């Protein structure tokens, strides 16, 4: 078994294990919110922290793993670095688990300054958490720099970003997956660097006692968090771009429009994060306007170019609806729907009523659980199936996809309704006035169970192929 294959299989296994564990942590949160297990209430916020950091980190590495596999078709990323990234990620997760389970660290996934210092948990738990984020950030930075290096080895920066298409040339051919990955990785460097700056400020304060500016820390934290989640999505989309043609039998090449749209994404994604600070009225007002304009603009390359392109590719194509393709196809749909929820919330006038209500988890869970997750799971299935060529029972696979879609969207609907009802996010227990929040969480639990059933069946279906491909 070659190293590249082994690495990919390892990443798939890590993803499956962590996804189940973190999903159960999320389910635990909804159980507490439904007032069903009140003796464990004090674990709500630590679990929220674990679920948040875990999921954001997990899907980030999972989509880099996909992008790295896709990239290896065109360039030569170092497999040793990929292995290093795996070990680094596992080490970081261990520190995270220690801080949450032993220290009850609970500052939330974006550990907003200065809460880590003022939460009542022991200092070592804060330190362990910060070390965990440092290890993860440093590892990932090495990993994405290596992927960028592999692109740079073959393409000039102009080619990698498709500038020659914009100038009207048609060659040399640069696959869209390379273009999208290059854009995402460059923005990814900015993402991890802002994380580094935040961490440096935290450590500096721990060592010297010199305080930090809360607004600056908030800006940097959201720059980091916003980019991390958005870029995970784009990297998964790159994998979809690469795999779709093999199912539909039609090419999906780069062209002028694709190049323009992804170059604009590079600018937009760095500016849209301002929408996280709409309710900080001291932030300069034109930053807020830039935030809304950039957030609105980001819908054009996504919807008009990528989703439209995918639709044109599938329309009346001789597609075989295997589990891999079905999940990726509906993953694009989830991306679109989540995007609508996001654009609505990125309207300043609307955000004033929806900010930090459950509408926020509603929209990002949509493009995560029904977008990014489906694309990555679809790609993992595709990868294992390509290696093993096992017989596919399409009827059974349709049931799996249906369970995942029905469970997922039912669960999300409860979030959207709660958001419209002004139910706050991140509340362990809802006040009596907002008891509808508890009822909706109860209903959400039914749908989570359906999703979980679908997920278990998916892991069975993909796991069989994973086991078999160990011998390839």
């Amino acid at each position, binding site marked *: 078994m070659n190293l590249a294959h082994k690495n990919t299989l390892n990443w798939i296994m890590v993803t499956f294990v962590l996804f189940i564990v973190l999903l159960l942590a999320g389910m635990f949160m909804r159980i507490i919110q439904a007032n069903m297990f009140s003796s464990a209430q004090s674990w709500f916020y630590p679990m929220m922290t674990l679920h948040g950091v875990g999921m954001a980190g997990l899907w980030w590495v999972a989509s880099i793993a996909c992008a790295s596999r896709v990239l290896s078709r065109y360039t030569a990323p170092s497999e040793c670095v990929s292995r290093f990234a795996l070990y680094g990620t596992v080490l970081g997760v261990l520190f995270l688990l220690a801080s949450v389970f032993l220290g009850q660290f609970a500052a939330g996934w974006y550990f907003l300054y200065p809460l880590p210092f003022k939460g009542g948990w022991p200092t070592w738990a804060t330190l362990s958490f910060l070390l965990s984020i440092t290890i993860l950030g440093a590892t990932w930075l090495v990993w994405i*720099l290596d992927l*960028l*290096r592999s692109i*740079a*080895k*073959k*393409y*000039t*920066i102009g*080619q*990698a970003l498709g500038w020659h298409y914009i100038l009207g040339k048609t*060659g*040399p*051919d640069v696959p869209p997956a390379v273009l999208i990955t290059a854009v995402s990785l*460059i*923005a*990814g*460097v*900015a*993402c991890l*660097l*802002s994380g580094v*700056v935040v961490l440096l*400020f935290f450590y*500096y*304060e721990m060592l010297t*006692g*010199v*305080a*930090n*500016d809360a*607004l*600056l820390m908030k*800006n*940097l934290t959201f*720059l980091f968090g916003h980019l991390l989640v958005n870029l995970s999505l784009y990297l998964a989309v790159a994998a979809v771009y690469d795999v779709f043609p093999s199912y539909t039998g039609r090419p999906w090449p780069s062209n002028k429009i694709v190049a323009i749209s992804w170059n604009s994404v590079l600018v937009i994604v*760095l500016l849209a994060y301002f929408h996280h600070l709409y309710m900080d*009225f*001291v932030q300069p007002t034109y930053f807020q306007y830039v935030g809304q304009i950039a957030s609105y603009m980001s819908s054009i390359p996504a919807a008009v170019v990528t989703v439209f392109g995918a639709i044109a590719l599938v329309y009346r194509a001789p597609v075989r609806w295997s589990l891999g393709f079905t999940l990726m196809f509906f993953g694009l749909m989830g991306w679109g729907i989540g995007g609508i929820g996001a654009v609505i919330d990125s309207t300043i006038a609307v955000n004033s009523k929806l900010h930090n209500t459950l509408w926020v988890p509603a929209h990002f869970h949509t493009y995560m659980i029904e977008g990014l997750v489906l694309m990555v799971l679809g790609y993992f299935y595709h990868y294992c199936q390509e290696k093993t060529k096992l017989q596919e029972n399409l009827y059974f696979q349709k049931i799996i996809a249906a369970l995942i879609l029905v469970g997922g969207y039912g669960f999300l609907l409860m979030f959207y309704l709660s958001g419209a009802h002004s139910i706050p996010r991140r509340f362990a227990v809802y006040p009596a006035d907002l008891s509808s929040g508890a009822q909706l969480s109860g209903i959400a639990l039914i749908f989570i169970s359906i999703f979980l059933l679908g997920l278990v069946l998916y892991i069975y279906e993909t796991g069989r192929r994973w086991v078999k491909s160990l011998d390839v």
Partner: protein
Amino acid sequence: MTFNFTSLKSRTVWIKIFLLLTVVFIIAPLKAQEQEKEILEKVSKSLYNQVPDVEISLPNNQKLLLSELWKDKPVLINFFYRECTGTCNPFLRSLKTTVEKVGGISEDYRILSLSFDPKDGPREVAAMAEAVGVEKQKDWMFGTIKPIDIQKISDAIGFWYRLDSKTGQFDHASSITAVRNGKVIRVLLGSLVTPTRFRDMLYELKGTFVPTYSNPGENVLFRCFRVDELSKSVKFGWGMLILFIPGFCALLIAGVLFHKSSHSREPMGLS
């Protein structure tokens, strides 16, 4: 029996003590609660109110209208009375210290200290100015107004006072009311005038809201905003620049990476 409860004398003493305790324990807390509500009502209601344009008399018997004072620069109005054994003196001294520390008097604002005691005349207010040590400061004026105007103006700017007939002393608020073009902009409460709050008030008089503050003894690494004393405005600090560093560095790193690899790059074939 050495201690007789029923003796007339001790009985009156006990009753007196009980009555006093009743006042202390029941009425005083209730009254304090009433008062705090009242203060917010008064201060809050007086904001942006029009101040009546009354006539004031200065110690040199010069008479002028308030509007003559606020027509070119804002006026900080406060009240005192000469005979005060309580907060008036320390309050005015604290204001003086703060004014010296913060500066800007004459250029940016005037101060007007008015007596609300009808007994005070030109001599008393002049003596007060001297006691505080600001008699030579031409933009810190001490003056008196007609008793009928005292009520009018104190209602408009959130000041209150009442005479305690037993002691002959006034029970009154300690506050500074910042007036710009005849309108109340801010009211500073309390007998201690702190420089930070005073400075914030001066900025607000200029129409600049200062969105950030730092507490004494607090050391902050990079701030997003700084207050520019020269232009009296809020400007970006180094913190705002730091926001652009990650994005800028990312582009730089990408540029360097691609440039470095250009030597070892195989030329792309027309595959």
